[in-house]
């Protein structure tokens, strides 16, 4: 833990959820601030200057999606949205608006903590510090553009590299299908998820121990892909 523990702002209108998060995150060593609605959230953002905000999208006074831009304003905070199951479109919209990640209610606390760590790491680390990303037996060197598996160089095509590098720049975070298509193939290929599927499959063949049961590059149905780092 750094000298000052990272501060997390929990925005949720349900007191029992706030209680749960306070306990879980507190035990993990984070400092907690709480807000029960959009108004409180905005004032807590300017007063507490949290490092990360956990935002429930179902707030009583304002649509959570509207709040994302305001909460992402300077000073910059990482932002994870908490959404109900099956609201895939809402999750994608939140990610497009700048949320770093999402968790689905009811969430698994281990998974929540993993997301929080990934988002904070991304925010705290500067680009140069993350030159080499480790994911299982695979290491991805973003500067020298080299992929190794068990220490052996793996050949990837330029598009596969672009895709892998994009995932590796945001380890542990979900990147939406559209985001990846736009970055790697260009805006003309938006909606053509088949390109993404084929390239991901090729990467898995080269990097995964068991390509039909992927552990490194995992999919969130209807949302996007995540590189599981570490």
């Amino acid at each position, binding site marked *: 833990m750094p000298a000052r523990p990272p501060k997390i702002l929990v925005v949720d209108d349900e007191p029992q959820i706030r209680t749960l998060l306070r306990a879980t995150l507190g035990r993990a060593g984070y400092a907690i601030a709480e807000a029960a609605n959009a108004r409180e959230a905005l004032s807590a953002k300017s007063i507490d200057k949290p490092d990360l905000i956990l935002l429930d999208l179902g707030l009583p006074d304002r649509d959570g999606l509207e709040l994302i831009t305001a909460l992402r304003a300077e000073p910059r905070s990482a932002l994870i949205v908490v959404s109900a199951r*099956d609201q895939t479109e809402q999750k994608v919209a939140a990610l497009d608006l700048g949320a770093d990640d999402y968790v689905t209610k009811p969430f698994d606390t281990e998974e929540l903590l993993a997301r929080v760590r990934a988002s904070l790491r991304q925010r705290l680390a500067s680009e140069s510090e993350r030159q080499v990303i480790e994911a299982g037996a695979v290491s991805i060197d973003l500067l020298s553009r080299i992929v190794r598996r068990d220490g052996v160089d793996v050949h990837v095509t330029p598009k596969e590299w672009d895709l892998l590098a994009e995932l590796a720049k945001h380890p542990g975070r979900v990147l939406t299908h559209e985001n990846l298509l736009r970055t790697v193939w260009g805006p003309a290929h938006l909606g053509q998820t*088949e390109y993404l599927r084929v390239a*991901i499959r090729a990467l898995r063949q080269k990097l995964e121990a068991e*390509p*039909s049961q992927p552990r490194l590059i995992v999919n969130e*149905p209807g949302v996007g892909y995540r590189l599981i780092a570490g």
Partner: protein
Amino acid sequence: MLQTDASITERIQAYAGAIAMVAVATLIGLWIAPRWGTAPVDMIYLPAVLAAAALWGLGPGLAAGLAAAVAYNFFFTEPLHTLQMYHVTDIVTVVILLIVALVTSQLAAGIRSQAQLAASHAARNATIAGFAGRLLSSSSETEIAETACAELHRLFGSNAMLVSGLPQPDLIAAMPVGNRLTPSDIAAAALTLESGEPAGRGTSRLQPAEWVFYPVRSGSAVIAAAGLARDDGVPPVAEEQIPLLDNLLDQLALALERARADSDRREVGSLRERDRLRSALLSSVGHDLRTPLTAIIGAAAELRRARANDPELLATIESEAGKLERYISNLLDMARIEAGAVKLKTECVDLVDAVAAALKDLRQGLASREVGVDLPADLPLVRADPQLLHHCLINLIDNAARYSGADGPIWIAANAVRGDVKLTIEDRGPGLPVDRERALDVFTRLEGSDRRGGAGLGLAIVKGFAEAMGASVTAGNRKDGQGAAFSLCFPKALVVSERVDAG
């Protein structure tokens, strides 16, 4: 005019034919007379007169009779080559020839007109049968109305439409499409629907209308009105065709009645199904919510009372709460299917992703269970709604785990067969009873197993979502008979067959 010309030509030909027949008979007579005398000659004329009368009717028959009498008189009676007669027998012969012509032609004309009548009846019956047949092949009310209009348009060479509803009649179908009604036409249609009498142009009611409407009756009720109009303003249905039209409209009424009865029956069926579902849902909620809740409440109370950190009780709370959450998800999904509120958001999906995501969400429930996954590297991509597919897989795998015993293995495999892609989930449970389709029926739990909650609902959701995506589910047993196998089949149309070069 053309028609009259044709019939005049036909008449002339008939008379000429009659005279020609008499001429032939005369020639034969002239050949016979020098050899055997004139006695058989009068008999020679009989067939000629009979034939002319039978073939061409009264006029030509009489003409043949007269011509035969004159020719007989001229060529064969004393004095020869005059029109005078000396013998009474000759006079009798001539008179008999005339009588034969008269009687035969009357008889033949009667037979002919009867044949014509029969032919026209047959044609009319064929028309009616054809019309009824075409109506029979249409199922919905609109389809029937459209077919009927097209047929009326064809048979009567006029524009046709079908309207129903009072006080403001609505157009059900029209041929050609896009016919407009003036207010007086609407009034005429309303009048027909109200009174059951024809109204509109050419009838005694509502002359200014452009269309003439005929009632379509079922029993005493008028269920629709058929409108006919010709672009040239000529009455669309001639007087003698009215019985045919009435007949056709009766057939139409029958067909419409049948369609209405069908749709009523379907509605009753679906209401009954929904009713059954609702009561099944209520009893299921009672059982499937209360059981885990009882376990959770009990375990929590025990933990508080004993102030113990009992890992078994904690695990119970966690797993039972997980069951509750999945059950509630299923209830919501079922409600969506029931309400017809399943919205498809189809994209290109890799089944490897779908299976991995489902296994990840179920990881707590599966715990140490062995799960085999066999998805070939060249398995084609499929078009599916990723979220619906996710719920299908979760339910299928959860179901397999439920029936596979405490640590029974689960096997997930996919392959492409003749262009289709089939994903199969096998368990090591007791297998399915013979009545396999029932396994996918709402709330049906598999025979020979106790109630372990939620399974029937889950499978019904799998079926509902799969069908919404255009895929299908089949339930069967493993080839070795040791467990059940559920397959999700994506037909060729949903399989991405073209090679994608992602670069």
